[in-house]
């Protein structure tokens, strides 16, 4: 299988990429790691006359700490996140989750920005961005804008990124006394999430003062479960509390059903993986 005819362009900077996007409009698509886009082009699910390769843009490749935030460039690969000592230290569920994406070959190519913009319902990063209350920076012709993760994911393969725009970086606030974990029930061949649970908790003197729990793979749109969060907040963080909070998971949510897992099974696995994720923090 080969993609339909196309012209390959390599962007040297963010502004160069935006200029190319403007020039070619709907006929063009950005190419990052290509690990969602190229399989789709090969299957002829998509056809574009121009691919604008953004993977060599230095501005998109850094992971840094700035004024209480971690900033991850859109072009950072999953593999670079696995190996980042800054992230292992400050935001440990990011490297943990990255290590569960696909396989080493996929992690060597795929980028966090590409995954987030693609917004596959079974992708892992959306759940982590929601739990970490990330802010996503999008740049277009008229400048940059910041969108909260909560407002970014709109639905199946749909995000707040509009035509002519690109995601440039992801900013995550860092606070004291937090613990985080990501666990997933994975499709055994592709390793995509059937259920992925991301949890970021603030725990002070044995009490959970803040809980952020979000899911991938469960619904067409990644979501935070505020009922589970409320069941943990302000209470002692212990096994009983975890069990009762986990039993509330994904109630009232529209749950996906496919050949890997029926709706009822996915709902049950969501509760199981909520419990396991929280127990791993305990």
């Amino acid at each position, binding site marked *: 299988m*080969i993609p339909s005819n196309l*012209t390959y362009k390599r962007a040297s900077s963010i502004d160069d990429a935006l200029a190319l996007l403007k020039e070619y409009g709907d006929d063009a698509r950005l190419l990052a790691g*290509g690990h969602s886009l190229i399989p789709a082009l090969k299957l002829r699910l998509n056809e574009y006359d121009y691919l604008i390769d953004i993977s060599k843009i230095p501005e998109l490749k850094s992971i840094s700490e700035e004024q209480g935030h971690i900033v991850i460039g859109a072009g950072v690969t999953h593999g670079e996140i696995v190996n980042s000592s800054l992230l292992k230290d400050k935001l440990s569920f990011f490297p943990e989750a990255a290590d569960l994406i696909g396989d080493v*070959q996929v992690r060597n190519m795929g980028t966090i920005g590409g995954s987030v913009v693609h917004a596959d319902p079974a992708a892992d990063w959306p759940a982590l961005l929601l739990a970490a209350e990330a802010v996503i920076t999008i740049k277009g012709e008229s400048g940059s804008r910041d969108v909260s993760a909560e407002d970014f994911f709109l639905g199946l393969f749909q995000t707040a990124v509009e035509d002519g725009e690109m995601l440039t970086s992801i900013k995550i606030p860092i606070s004291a006394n937090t613990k985080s974990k990501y666990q997933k029930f994975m499709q055994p*061949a592709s390793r995509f999430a059937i259920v992925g649970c991301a949890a970021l908790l603030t725990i002070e003197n044995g009490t959970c003062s803040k809980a952020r729990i979000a899911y991938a793979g469960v619904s067409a749109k990644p979501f935070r479960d505020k009922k589970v969060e409320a069941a943990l907040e302000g209470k002692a963080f212990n096994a009983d509390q975890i069990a009762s909070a986990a039993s509330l998971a994904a109630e009232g949510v529209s749950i996906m059903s496919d050949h890997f897992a029926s709706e009822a099974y996915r709902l049950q696995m969501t509760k199981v993986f909520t419990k396991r994720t929280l127990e791993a923090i305990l």
Partner: protein
Amino acid sequence: MKVSVNVNGRQVDRDIEDRTLLVHFLREDLNLTGTHVGCDTSGCGACTVLLNGNAVKSCTLLAAQVDGEKITTIEGLSNGELHPLQEGFKEEHGLQCGFCTPGMIMTSADLLSRNKQPNEQEIREALEGNFCRCTGYHNIVRAVKYAAEKMT
């Protein structure tokens, strides 16, 4: 478009269609048929090569993406003698039909470049993206262990 790629230490310049996949560039333009096409859908790892030392699936990259970069295929893993990984697969019976073997070896080369003494679990995890329909994997794990020992 014109691409210039360092393949197995040799600079190659070719004029190709922009949509050419890396695996076809290697097999058809350069006659390096050691890199196999298995699933052609990014799953099986038979097409794995090293891009600047990192294992990647060459059926899921355009040759254009590696313009100016360094590619190593199974043919370039060693010059002349068998690489310890190749020797390991031979000694430990790490293959039956051999279709998956080039990919297995290239992914293992990536692993051994990061982790000189991987344990069994680490080897199995590193090879998650490489499928073998014949061996049941046990001897593949032994082959990688053999190479790790030989290389220290």
